[in-house]
């Protein structure tokens, strides 16, 4: 048997109080697409960081071999030299620079001391062809969509002499079309001899593309499966990932007759000063008590803008139209007003605008409703601990303590902290923007279960989601948005992925 291109043997990595990797063994064959799956906190990112030299040699125990040679990386630069390239979920491109400048960033082609733009551009054109991206290399990155930016990032990696390309959740922010393109590109790269390691939560995509699948759980390798020989399907993977089988990805909910109308938008429009155009046009929607209403649509269709404009308009759009909460017209000046009217908004991007990452779990949970734990103008820190512990238990937030900084938690647990923070506001209307983005199957199931129990207690949920199965599995009623308009409304019983998609792409 030929030497594996990459072999990681008995890797153990400890952080203060946590063993993130426990004797992990991971072996990748030349030229394959190897998928790495596991719940959040299973150790996938840590493993990649060990491999790439982010955690330098000596801070972990175990050995890394590339093509049979022992590697002792002390920095990302050294691992790059050895032919490892990583594409992170958060893109590392400079928005104000052009496509070609980004591709050669750090490895500029020079003629003497001066950058040779012509040579760079002509090489960039060739590389862009390789990744199937048809854009002018002089275009600034900020003018490209996320899908295309991702391709530029891959082009940047390919320009270096890459043996192993690691993609961390590359399709998390992409719509279905861009995701398909990306997967096709990965297949193409495989044919050119590039070995790919793909980390993904989207099991369907994993099953579609993988030659080999390694499952991590709690910092240990659970199993490595050959996709062409072993029996591999979603239930099998889920069982390995969570250590139990999940019968149904979407927990069942007793459907109840929706109660009174709690939220209504009439002719709601928004104009963005930054973009200089209308981003929401004449939106009429309503949400009833005990209902989960989904807003489907492609990225850029205005779903998040709709949520933010209603929730106190923090981005400062020029608004027109009316909002009714429990039948009463409201004019919110800021998110604080919306919170007082018993709304809550769990943001799409928990890191960017959902949580204070450098602060601890308890402070994050109490932040939006400090008044409840204030006596005589002073925060009662003991009550705060009780509150935080209550949500920690109720939502099963896995953290060593509520004093733990939120940035040290896994994505799923961060999402639960975010949810806990907004439940502490005791809202009637909960807006969930991509409630399960970038979190694993087990945590997803838990979040769905929480959503179900909330609506059963009479809360109303407005859920924005890019995942069609999630919309079909969880909601009662669906609005489909496209280009800032509501293109259609349907009951979940009448909805299929196809008819939602049809409305979403219909401009």
């Amino acid at each position: 048997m030929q030497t594996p291109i990459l072999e990681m043997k008995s890797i153990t990595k400890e952080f203060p109080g946590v063993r993130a990797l426990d004797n992990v063994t991971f072996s990748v064959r030349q030229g394959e697409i190897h998928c790495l799956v596991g719940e959040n906190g299973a150790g996938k990112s840590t493993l990649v960081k060990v491999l790439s030299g982010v955690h330098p040699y000596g801070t972990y125990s175990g050995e890394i071999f590339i093509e049979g040679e022992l590697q002792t990386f002390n920095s990302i630069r050294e691992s790059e030299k050895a032919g490892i390239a990583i594409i992170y979920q958060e893109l590392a491109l400079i928005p104000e620079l052009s496509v070609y400048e980004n591709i050669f960033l750090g490895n500029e082609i020079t003629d003497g001391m001066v950058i040779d733009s012509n040579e760079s551009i002509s090489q960039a054109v060739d590389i862009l062809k390789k990744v199937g991206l048809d854009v002018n290399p002089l275009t600034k990155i900020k003018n490209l969509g996320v899908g295309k930016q991702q391709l530029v990032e891959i082009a940047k990696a390919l320009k270096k002499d890459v043996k192993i390309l690691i993609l961390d959740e590359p399709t998390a922010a992409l719509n279905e079309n861009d995701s398909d393109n990306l997967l096709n590109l990965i297949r193409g790269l495989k044919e050119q001899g590039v070995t790919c390691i793909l980390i993904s939560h989207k099991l369907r995509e994993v099953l579609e593309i993988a030659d080999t699948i390694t499952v991590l759980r709690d910092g240990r390798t659970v199993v490595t499966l050959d996709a062409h020989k072993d029996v591999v399907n979603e239930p099998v993977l889920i069982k390995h990932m969570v250590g139990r089988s999940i019968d149904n990805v979407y927990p069942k909910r007793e459907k109840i007759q929706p109660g009174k109308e709690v939220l209504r938008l009439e002719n709601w429009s928004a104009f963005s000063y930054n973009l200089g155009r209308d981003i929401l046009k004449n939106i009429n929607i309503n949400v009833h008590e005990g209902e989960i209403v989904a807003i489907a649509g492609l990225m850029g269709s205005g779903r998040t803008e709709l949520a933010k404009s209603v929730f106190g308009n923090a981005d400062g759009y020029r608004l027109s139209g009316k909002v009714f909460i429990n039948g009463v017209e409201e004019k919110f000046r800021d998110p604080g007003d919306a919170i007082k009217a018993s709304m809550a908004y769990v943001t799409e991007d928990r890191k960017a605008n959902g949580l204070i990452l450098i602060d601890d779990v308890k402070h994050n949970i109490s932040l939006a409703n400090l008044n409840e734990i204030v006596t005589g103008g002073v925060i009662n820190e003991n009550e705060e601990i009780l509150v935080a512990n209550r949500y920690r238990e109720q939502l099963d937030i896995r953290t060593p303590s509520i004093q733990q900084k939120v940035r040290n938690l896994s994505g799923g647990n961060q999402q639960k902290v975010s949810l806990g923070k907004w439940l502490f506001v005791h809202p009637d209307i909960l807006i969930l923007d991509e409630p399960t983005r970038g979190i694993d199957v087990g945590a997803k199931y838990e979040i769905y279960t929480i959503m179900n129990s909330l609506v059963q207690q009479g809360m109303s949920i407005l859920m924005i989601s890019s995942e069609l199965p999630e919309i079909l599995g969880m909601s009662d009623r669906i609005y489909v948005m496209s280009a800032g308009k509501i293109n259609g409304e349907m009951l979940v019983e009448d909805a299929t992925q196809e008819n939602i998609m049809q409305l979403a792409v219909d401009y």
Partner: protein
Amino acid sequence: MEDSKQSNNIRNQFKNLVDIVKVNISDYFMFFALVIIMIIFTITTDGVFISSRNISNLINQMGYIAVLAVGMTLIIVIRHIELSVGYLAGFLGAFAAIAMTFWGWPVYAVIPVVMILGMLAGMLTATPVARLGVPAFVSTMAAGLIYRGALLLVTMGTGTIVIRDPVFNAIGNGFIPDLPLEGLLPGRHKLTLLIGLIAIILSIVTSIKNRKTKLSYNFSVPRTSLFILQLVLVSGLIGYVSWILSGYNGISWSLVILLLVVIVFQFITTKTPLGRHIYAVGGNPEAAELSGISVSKITYIVFAAMGLLSSLSGIMYASRLRSATTTAGLGFETDAIAAAFVGGVSAAGGVGTIIGSIIGALVMMSLTSGMNLMGIDISIQYIVRGAVLVLAVVFDRITRKDK
């Protein structure tokens, strides 16, 4: 067998202690550094440094920078900077001098008016920052130039303005009165000792009360032995400082002002929703805004507080010199920013404490005082202070990494 178990147990306890120190090292490091600096200067100056007279002087010299450092901490916590505070302090000091000397205003009117002016000035500087997102660097630098010009303008005719009001001059030079007990403890300032004693009792009582409340919530508390050790250390510290101060003239009015400022700001930042909101805005402004916290309101409040503290600084400085000068306030902002950074504030926002910055100010002022006593040339003093500033920040970076 039993023996080895016991030694294991002790070893584990020691390991725990080491772990606790490791985790919190960046929080306490500056305090240790301060103690070490003080010990070194005490040795090199044959004890002059730690003498009652010198410590008392040091505190009075530090006062007008330390109050600025308190405000600067909050400014940096919300990711801004304030470059106008020095000139604002200088200008307001001159305003106070003119109001008393030329306009004949009573001191009890001048002080509140100056404080209100300081607050308004802070809010004015904050307006372009909070409303339009103009970088505070630019907005406050511009304001600084304007105050500098204003100071030169109002002192143009007269140059230095001498202040003759004894009440005003006591702020920077005077001490609290003593108890009229002639026979008791000669050579000691009795009221200072009494205040120290009260402070010790208060700190013990509140500590015990807090511990009881925690227990009533069934929360874990430090072991009794550790708790007592903590009480003894804190009481000892308060007692020692009071004892040293009582050996000279006792507590100065500067120290009274500084303590009040520290107590008020420490309370606001650690105990109230406003404080929590300030740190939330610093930690993640977008998340704070979406949590119902108005970022622009917080910006106004923090800059207004900075303006208020600048006015106090100006008053303390003018009072200390018993006059308003054309160069008053020059470089104060640099000293305040340095104290805040030495005290562990982070330019990335959301991190930094009031107590930390006070310790930072004490470190910087101890260096000045100690090196002055040793007769070290001012050129070397600048170099040493610069080196300490950069070392403190570097150490903070290293110890906070990976946490």
